[in-house]
């Protein structure tokens, strides 16, 4: 379970995240939905310990991330904004490295790596160097890396961004599978269809604040609209959506 409690973060004079609170529960997929620049990435970065909140706190399975970052990270699998691959390493070497970094023994690392290569369908690229891989292949390696230590919580920053239709569908099914297996999945997106397709809960974020939270079915009803898109536009404020 991941809890954001009154997160606040500014860079110099720019307030990036003003007030973000929500809870992502085990066994469900929670989407952080918002327009570009709403503060999604900054919020996630505070959750996975890359940034320190100026006030408020991120709690992972009861551990305050700022107080014990390593314990929080141990329980988190993260797919950041940029895949950040090493061009001279193969897919298998990437997974093996991530496994060792998370503290798995050599034997465990080898077993987990082999299992994830199979599960994510990477057999064809497992022993090729990653320079020149397609977006979809890169994202698979990054996802495999995030899942290498079988974390209870998985945070994905725009996981389908830049992927083609088959890769997007594959990514969504992995996300669904994880939650159905009892994991807590939190991902950020600005794509509405994605939310309807895989999410149990939606947290709408705009201008650094949480403006609404609920199931994809609840939100249109709450705003008096018939579909999620209209509800979303109303919630984030039309000007904001069109202006940026």
């Amino acid at each position, binding site marked *: 379970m991941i809890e954001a409690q009154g997160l606040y973060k500014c860079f110099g004079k720019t307030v990036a995240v003003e007030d973000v609170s929500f809870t992502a529960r085990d066994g469900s997929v929670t989407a952080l939905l918002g327009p570009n620049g709403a503060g999604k990435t900054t919020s996630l970065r505070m959750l996975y310990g*890359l940034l320190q909140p100026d006030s408020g706190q991120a709690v992972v399975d009861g551990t305050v991330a700022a107080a014990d970052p390593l314990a929080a990270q141990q329980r*988190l699998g993260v797919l950041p904004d*940029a895949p*950040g*691959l090493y061009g001279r*390493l193969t897919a298998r070497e990437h997974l093996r490295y*991530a496994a*060792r*970094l998370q503290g798995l023994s050599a034997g465990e690392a080898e077993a987990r790596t082999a299992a994830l290569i199979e599960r994510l369908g990477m057999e064809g690229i497992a022993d090729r160097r990653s320079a020149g891989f397609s977006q979809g292949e890169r994202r698979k390696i990054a996802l495999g890396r995030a899942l290498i230590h079988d974390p209870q919580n998985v945070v994905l920053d725009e996981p389908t961004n830049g992927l083609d239709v088959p890769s997007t569908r594959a990514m969504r099914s992995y996300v669904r599978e994880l939650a159905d297996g009892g994991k807590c999945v939190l991902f950020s997106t600005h794509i509405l269809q994605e939310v309807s397709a895989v999410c149990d809960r939606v947290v709408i974020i705009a201008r650094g604040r949480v403006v609404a939270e609920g199931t994809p079915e609840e939100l249109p009803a709450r705003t008096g609209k018939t579909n999620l898109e209209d509800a979303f536009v109303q919630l984030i404020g039309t000007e904001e959506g069109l202006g940026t």
Partner: protein
Amino acid sequence: MTAKALAVFAKEALDAARDRRSLMSALSFALFGPLVLAMALTTVAKTSDDGPLKLAVAGAGNAPSLIHYLEQNGVEVAQPPTDIQAAVRSGDLKLALVIPRDYGKDFRASRPARVELVHDASRLGSSAPVRRVEKLLERYSSQVAGLRLSARGISPEVVSPVRLSEVDLSSAASRAAFALATFPIFLLMAAFIGGMNVAIDTTAGERERGSLETLLVHAVPRLDLVTGKWMAAVLFNLFAVLLTLLFSFLVLRWDRLQKMDIPVALSVDDALRLLALLLPLALLAPALQMLIALFARSFKEAQTQLSLLMLLPMIPGLLLSFQSFEPKPWMRAVPILAQQVLMRDLLYGKAAAPAVQALTAGATVALTVVCIAITARLLRHERIVLGR
């Protein structure tokens, strides 16, 4: 050493070994330094005045006793070309001695007998042999003068009110050190260049490619990350230092240099002592470079800054090698500077006391630890991590 630090080390070493740029920077310098050293030493050897001197003599038959004297004093008399002046002008011949036909007549009549030394003073490397031949001719001249005075009942000492005798105190070892002036600088540079690419690639490069964020979301203590990366850079550094030392060792034991009679052979013991001096430096350099590279905005910027910064510690080394600059005692405790002083001492045949060496090594290692600790701390700063 934790398992995580070792994992980082293994990954970075593998990554760097596959990077041609990292390998080349370590390798090329290891070859370049000793090559320059070989060239410098051959030049020194050519200008030294020991060994036989080839001298083309025209009209050797006109002065048999002079020729005999020259031959006794290490001169190999050779046949002159037909056009001596043209040969000297074109550089085919450095110098030639011309003995005119009436030499014998003048000599027997006790009149100054003229000989000509043909050379081109504007040519590099001609002054040493010219000076040598001049000296021999002067000595021959005063010897004959002494005999003539004695024959007339006058002691030759009457005409030498002052006798100059030079006492050259330079030992074989110190002359060798002079010839090896640039050697410590090359060794020092090897310790700075060998792992530089790895140090930059694993810090500024990692951030520029966007993989630093991913790396930092793993549950790894920052100190393990920095230690692992540092060890990989040290590995490349040691590789470069060892190769440079090995190639230098081979150059200094090269037959041609031995024949040229410059006493520069580097003993195995001295090579090992040099290595012992360089080891702490090979540890410090990557730690320093990683720390600095973290502040650079890109790989290229880090490379530029570090290349410039590398020249700074070379300045005392240059002063030490080209001037008679007597190092102060405190210099032996300042890392980088100390190694240069001690390397120079060693090549002068004065190995430092173990206590001094321990002090130098200790100070260097301590600075290395400080650099690593600061780098690990810096990786907690958002500005550094995100590169803003």
